[in-house]
């Protein structure tokens, strides 16, 4: 099939491109691409829940921020070096999301979304008001980083590596029997039960896994900016991440990554010329939802493969 060959050739080329990129572009652009890597991880993780499991979490910002805060707090309050703090972020967040998730998956989709929002806002509130510990609305700034990752240049390669590892892990997960079970319960939870899948258990598992990788993205971003703010957890961030995976396409694995690229570029370009970025984003989202519900990737795939499926 044509599209598979295209994929096989383009991936290595893309990788090679990404490896040499920092040598050719200005530092400003490198920062932007690092942001893209972070957003790609976050959106793909959020999509594990939304697109692959049918569970739309409106609390993604909360767990993204949790990763960042755990990392930041460990470094600044406990002196734990970044090498360990970075991993503690996702691990700690995964543990944190267990009790939250247990409550969230007990009800239908609408309630899942709202409860996950409530929990995330609660986390945001705690972080925002606990001034003495988390810095409140001032956040935590000037977080020391290991010398090896001191420059934008070197952090780029770190971020690239992290993104590749995270995406690879998520890819393996989705294509495993576990991943199949998750998609089955998205499509038909009742039938999934009747073939032996304990729906609640699997939903909780994917919730924890999704939040693990969201937190990884948060920790990665925190390390790059060497700061963390309450905004990391605000529901506006949830919207941005949700917009990204919707933009790219929720039914393809790389959709969210593509969405991240489009979003960041669109954002940086539009902001240069006008202050009206919100209406641009809003209008784009509305148009995508109305006319391209499978996102950019879904839209393009359909065009390429034509009427690939037999119909009734």
């Amino acid at each position: 099939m044509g599209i598979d060959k295209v994929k096989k050739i383009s991936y290595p080329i893309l990788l090679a491109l990404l490896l040499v990129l920092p040598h050719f572009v200005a530092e400003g652009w490198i920062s932007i691409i690092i942001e893209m890597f972070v957003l790609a991880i976050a959106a793909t993780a959020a999509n594990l829940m939304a697109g692959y499991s049918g569970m739309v979490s409106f609390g993604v910002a909360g767990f993204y921020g949790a990763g960042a805060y755990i990392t930041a707090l460990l470094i600044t309050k406990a002196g734990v070096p970044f090498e360990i703090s970075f991993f503690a972020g996702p691990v700690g967040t995964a543990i944190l999301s267990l009790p939250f998730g247990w409550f969230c998956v007990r009800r239908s989709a609408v309630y899942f979304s709202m409860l996950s929002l409530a929990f995330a806002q609660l986390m945001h509130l705690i972080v925002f008001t606990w001034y003495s510990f988390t810095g409140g609305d001032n956040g935590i700034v000037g977080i020391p980083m290991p010398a090896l990752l001191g420059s934008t240049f070197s952090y780029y390669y770190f971020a690239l590596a992290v993104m590749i590892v995270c995406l690879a892990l998520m890819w393996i997960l989705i294509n495993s029997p576990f991943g199949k079970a998750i998609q089955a319960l998205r499509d038909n939870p009742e039938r999934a039960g009747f073939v032996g899948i304990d729906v609640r258990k699997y939903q909780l598992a994917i919730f924890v896994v999704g939040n693990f990788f969201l937190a990884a993205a948060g920790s990665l971003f925190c390390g790059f900016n060497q700061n963390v703010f309450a905004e990391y957890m605000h529901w506006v961030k949830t919207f941005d991440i949700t917009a990204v995976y919707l933009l790219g396409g929720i039914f393809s694995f790389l959709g969210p990554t593509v969405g991240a690229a489009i979003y960041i570029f669109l954002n940086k370009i539009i902001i240069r010329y006008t202050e009206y970025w919100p209406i641009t984003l809003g209008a784009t989202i509305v148009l995508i939802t109305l006319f391209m519900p499978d996102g950019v990737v879904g839209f393009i795939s359909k065009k390429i493969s034509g009427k690939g499926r037999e119909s009734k």
Partner: protein
Amino acid sequence: MIFEVRNLMKSFGGISAVHEVNFNLKEGEISSIIGPNGAGKTTLFNLITGKLKPDHGEVFFKGIEISQIKPHQLCNKKIGRSFQITNVFPKFTAYENIQVAILSTRNRCKNPFRRSESMFKEDTILILESLGMLNKKDIQAGYLAHGDQKLLDIGVALAGQPELLFLDEPTAGMSPQETRATTELVKKLAEERNLTVLLIEHDMNVVFSISQIIRVMHQGKLIAEGTPEEIRGNDHVQRVYLGDRV
């Protein structure tokens, strides 16, 4: 007796849906439950497959009481069920539908590491072949014709290698040819795999051609049980349900 139902009762808000139902299934027996709409057949199915909990009574499968078990645990006990309103995984291909059912019932779904594509390929193909759907294996279930979806539904139920199979109106909405083909298929599968099969059906041709035993339900109660000839000759049943349709 591979399956026993004792004194099963279920009411909804004061209305008795299933009332003191008792019957047994012999190993390898193919039988049907018939009855007018609202007689309680699907409620009965839901009770014996774990979707509903009975108010009273017990259900035994190979001597073990199963009425309190959740559906997803039931599956591992070698009971399979198909559904009245087709219940497949619409975004999966026919192949993936069967495959995920196999993966789950062989307890492999906990595995997050291996590539699932190649797992249990032969078993999946075998089931698809016996359904006669091998040529349609890569079509998304949501796009399959209605009759094929119902066949797939049965296939998914078979994936767990059940000993006992419950089929809820397997030929509903099918054309006469499809109905005949499905009936033959169920007979063949039951023989090949030594299945005990219990059907709910409205199509009398299917019922009378396939069943060794027919049970008649009316207003939640089991009012008759016997061979096709006995049922045909039963006045009570005639009055209540069959009329002169047979």
